């Protein structure tokens, strides 16, 4: 039974990363109509920024949670202003190819300087150790990752679904020309949205650093699963991405317990099944 709970916790933690990353992808796809293949590389950059802050500047984890998303978000905004904005109105394929190219370049540069092996990032002192819950042992850092991710996901959902700024974003997703004609600077909003989506990826990268180590290919390993999560949840759906992210993490964890051989493929099998039954994803709407 202990092993089942342990796998459930691993599933929840993976689900936290899936949710944060797919949420960013959903926000970006909804607003920019771009399938952001660079997301994994930007997640990796978040972890590296935290690593540099700690090892070069002596800046701790808590500050990294704030600084890394801002730094990577600004990098993302520069990418959007200099490259992605020119793809407006073009087929999805162009965005996919461009962001895939960006991902390869970013990962290649980091691999060139840091190799492929992981570099350790220590768990902050306040989150070391664990708690015995009676039925299982809970490492505090892992519990923190799940709760913090959930809070960030809900806050992002609230921002987009329940605020004036979110109404602008949703309206601009439907008809950017009209929203701009109402006096709203839509190009600037698109840039900021890309920065927000990318910042969420970087935040996931910082959270992941103490668990998975800091590696140039840490994003590449994760991004394919995250895309499956987004497809299952429904492209562009915020709540769909959050729920599907956590749920698939748990399903993956349970599969590891009951039938480990299928644990790496279960997400993709589910994706195929969902696409067969509901091609727009569980909560997505037809284009």
């Amino acid at each position, binding site marked *: 039974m202990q092993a089942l709970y342990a796998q459930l916790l691993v599933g929840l933690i993976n689900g936290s990363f899936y949710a944060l990353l797919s949420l960013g992808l959903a926000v970006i796809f909804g607003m920019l109509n771009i399938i952001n293949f660079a997301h994994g590389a930007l997640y990796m950059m978040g972890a590296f920024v935290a690593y540099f802050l700690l090892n070069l500047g002596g800046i701790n984890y808590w500050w990294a949670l704030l600084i890394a998303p801002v730094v990577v978000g600004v990098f993302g905004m520069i990418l959007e202003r200099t490259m992605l904005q020119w793809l407006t109105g073009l087929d999805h394929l162009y965005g996919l190819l461009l962001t895939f190219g960006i991902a390869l370049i970013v990962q290649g540069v980091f691999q060139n300087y840091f190799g492929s092996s992981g570099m350790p990032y220590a768990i902050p002192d306040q989150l070391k150790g664990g708690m015995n819950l009676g039925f299982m042992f809970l490492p505090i850092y892992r519990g923190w990752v799940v709760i913090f991710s959930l809070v960030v996901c809900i806050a992002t959902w609230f921002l987009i679904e329940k605020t004036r700024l979110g109404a602008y974003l*949703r309206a601009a997703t439907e008809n950017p020309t009209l929203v701009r004609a109402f*006096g709203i600077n839509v190009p600037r909003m698109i840039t900021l949205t890309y920065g927000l989506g990318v910042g969420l990826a970087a935040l996931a990268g910082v959270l992941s650093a103490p668990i998975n180590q800091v590696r140039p290919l840490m994003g590449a390993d994760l991004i394919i699963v995250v895309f499956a999560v987004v497809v299952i949840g429904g492209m562009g759906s915020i709540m769909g991405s959050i729920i599907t992210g956590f749920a698939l993490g748990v399903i993956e964890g349970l599969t590891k317990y009951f039938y480990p051989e299928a644990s790496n493929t279960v997400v993709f099998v589910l994706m195929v099944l969902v696409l067969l039954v509901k091609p727009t994803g569980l909560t997505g709407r037809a284009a």
Partner: protein
Amino acid sequence: MVETVIADAPAKTAAGGNILQVRNLEAWYGESHILHGINFDVNAGEVVTLLGRNGAGKTTTLKSIMGIIGKRTGSVKFNNQDITRTTSDKIARMGIALCPEERGIFSSLDVRENLLLPPVVRPGGLSLEQIFELFPNLKERLNSQGTKLSGGEQQMLAIARILRTGASFLMLDEPTEGLAPVIIQQIGHTIARLKKEGFTILLVEQNFRFASTVADRYYVVEHGKIIDGFSNSELAANMDKLHTYLGV
């Protein structure tokens, strides 16, 4: 209809002063040349109607003034300021508001969010209370999804949301299209009220019977050009010509 006073109607240019000047306006959709040199003026406080058949270039004229056409040349001046190369968000902030032909109600927003979406660009816009006095239906449907409203209610919402912004120059693109006569009458009353309060309105209409109830002057658009223009007092004398122009 409940009579209300729009207490804080927007600050206007001196009555009768020229507020919009369009000269040699040309516009393109991709390779298609749609406007071939449009010239007309709108004076402050007037309701001016662009009449014409489908595809004549009326909507494109409004979009060109608003700056939402890919390529345009010529000159558009608003309050003596050249806005030909100004982006649409800045044009909106100068006090021009567009109510588009397809109404542009956002399906992912409820009525309240649709209503509050356009930012207030200058003081003097209508308050929500004043808007609900003009369009009581909207108050009852505040939490409904925008696109779940009837066609008439959607049109009211589309007009209402630009009245909040403080814009003094309103461009209404076929506000009566596809609506029941009773709703058309209500929209006519609203336009008359707005005119009385000093708003300047540029109206695009195919229904000149409706337009004649509210307009001060008319321009006829054909093949991307203004081919005729007359005032409301000259309407009766020009009726035969108008029938020919509009093919009715």
